């Protein structure tokens, strides 16, 4: 025990003395939450658009006003000729043009049918899609109002309710994602680095010649990072609740327990990397390509897994972050209890045990 404590104490000395690294480790989650929360968002606000109105009647004015009144759009300019549209896209920062043909209101009155053209800048497909959807929704809204006035015998109203995230906030999906990313980085990469560093400096040799058991060496190295990860989880959760307004609907205890499970999995992966390499560069490279990239790409937090081709969908199942992400999202946002996610928890536990066993087995007791 005394031996173990000496080890843990030494590891803390290493971490506390390296102020820069510690600052990065503790600051990274804060920075990521803030960047994701405020800078990177899928929501479209105040997009600049232009209007080309050949009709200038009651209906087009009403629709134009309604569009301008919404928080999504800001009408920047009125175009008077179809030919000028492309120039408007190229010169200005216009994202969309709404075109009303001639006799819009009359067509609507006499033929019960009129057309509006929405031209969007699809060089950014997601934004274009969102903008046309918003615009269509506003136009539909107008249509519903005028049909209400006329009292048609039949009409179908679709009422949409966004469950769990009524305001469609991006934060709801990236908070669990950032948790996965940060834990993967802190635990896996830092554990791998700290062990490989001892190999590089030659101190590992001295440790292996000492009566210290390799398992103890490894566990002692993991303890400080486990603690650091827990601090990170708590700071992420505090920030997301109090700054981003993301609720924790499920059990906090369950959330922390699952995070702990994922942390252990990451630590095991870090150990595995450290026994496979002898230089810090290689360790960083493997951690980034082998762990971090899959965490970002295949956990479902950046790109929906359902839309991926079959091989990628299959591969995503071996990425621990995918399971962690699914669980955290369910617990945090939907308030799911353990009864509905026990399968995912079981998979993650299985992975943790597998990687832990493998890493302890491969950790070299003898150097040659």
């Amino acid at each position, binding site marked *: 025990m005394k031996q173990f404590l000496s080890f843990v104490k030494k590891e803390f000395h*290493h971490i506390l003395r390296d102020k820069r690294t510690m600052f990065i480790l503790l600051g990274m989650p804060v920075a990521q939450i803030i960047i994701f929360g405020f800078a990177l968002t899928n929501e479209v606000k105040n997009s600049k658009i232009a209007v080309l109105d050949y009709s200038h009647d009651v209906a087009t004015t009403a629709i134009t006003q309604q569009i301008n009144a919404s928080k999504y759009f800001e009408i920047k300019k009125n175009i008077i000729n179809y030919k000028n549209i492309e120039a408007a896209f190229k010169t200005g920062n216009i994202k969309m043009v709404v075109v009303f043909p001639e006799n819009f209101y009359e067509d609507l009155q006499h033929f019960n049918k009129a057309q509006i053209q929405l031209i969007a800048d699809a060089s950014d497909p997601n934004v274009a899609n969102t903008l046309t959807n918003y615009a269509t929704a506003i136009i539909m809204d107008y249509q519903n109002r005028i049909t209400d006035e006329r009292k048609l015998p039949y009409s179908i109203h679709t009422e949409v309710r966004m469950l769990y995230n009524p305001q469609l906030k991006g934060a709801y999906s990236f908070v669990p994602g950032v948790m996965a990313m940060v834990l993967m980085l802190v635990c896996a990469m830092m554990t791998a680095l700290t062990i490989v560093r001892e190999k590089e400096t030659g101190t590992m040799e*001295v440790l292996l*010649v000492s009566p210290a058991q390799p398992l103890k060496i490894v566990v002692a190295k993991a303890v400080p990072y486990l603690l650091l990860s827990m601090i990170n989880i708590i700071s992420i959760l505090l920030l997301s609740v109090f700054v981003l307004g993301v609720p924790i609907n499920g059990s906090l205890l369950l959330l922390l327990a699952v995070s702990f499970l994922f942390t252990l999995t990451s630590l095991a992966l870090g150990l595995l990397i450290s026994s496979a390499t002898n230089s810090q560069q290689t360790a960083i490279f493997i951690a980034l390509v082998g762990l971090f990239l899959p965490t970002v790409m295949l956990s479902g937090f950046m790109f929906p897994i359902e839309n991926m081709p079959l091989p990628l969908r299959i591969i995503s199942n071996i990425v621990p972050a995918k399971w962690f992400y699914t669980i955290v999202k369910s617990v945090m946002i939907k308030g799911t209890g353990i009864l509905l996610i026990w399968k995912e928890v079981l998979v993650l536990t299985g992975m943790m045990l597998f990687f832990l066993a493998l890493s302890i087995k491969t950790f070299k007791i003898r150097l040659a």
Partner: protein
Amino acid sequence: MNENKAITVDKLTKKFGDFTAVDAISFDVNAGEIFGFLGANGAGKTTAMRMLCGLSLPTSGTATVAGFDVYHQTENIKKNIGYMSQKFSLYEDLTVKENINFYAGIYGKSNQFIKEKTSQVIANLHLENEVDKLVKSLPLGWKQKIAFSVSIFHEPEIVFLDEPTGGVDPITRREFWSMIYKAAESGITIFVTTHYMDEAEYCNRVCIMVDGHIKAMDTPPQLKKRYNATSMDEVFLKLARNAERAQAP
């Protein structure tokens, strides 16, 4: 087993695939002796030493260290030996005191023992003002001396020194060797590898390895007499002239 033998080695062999790094070497080291293990780079010194320290499993042959078998009793061996590697083996971002406390801690020494011994070691090294300084701020020669003190801090029966004086200036090397003598006087057996031939003169007995074999083993005066040489350097050159694996240093 013989009470007076610190190390016994019989036909110890280590193969890496087709390459035989250490080829059936046999020797004994007496308790309290300073035993020099010489050879060019690649002669197999380090490999042999690693087998004795329990870092590497022999391919064949037998060996005991402090009375324990290198195949099955490595845990016992580890408790009774000290080790200083050719790579510098202190933590640069820890202070002198923290390094000592850490290494003493992993050998399970009591706080009382650590406290008393630390002040004794620090006094011997005249490092009273540097105790709380980070190791990286100290000159290399000091670091080596501290590393040696740390390797024998837990009072082992045998200490293995793997090229301990690499990159150190001649004056520091002399001081280093006087520390080795002191340790030997206190009863610690010293097993030291080196390729500095002048250092060989300091050893009680030396063993010269060439291409994985032991070419000669005796006291330095005897060796010089036998090979009709004035210095150990000359002895070594005569022996290593036909080496295939590496150049003489």
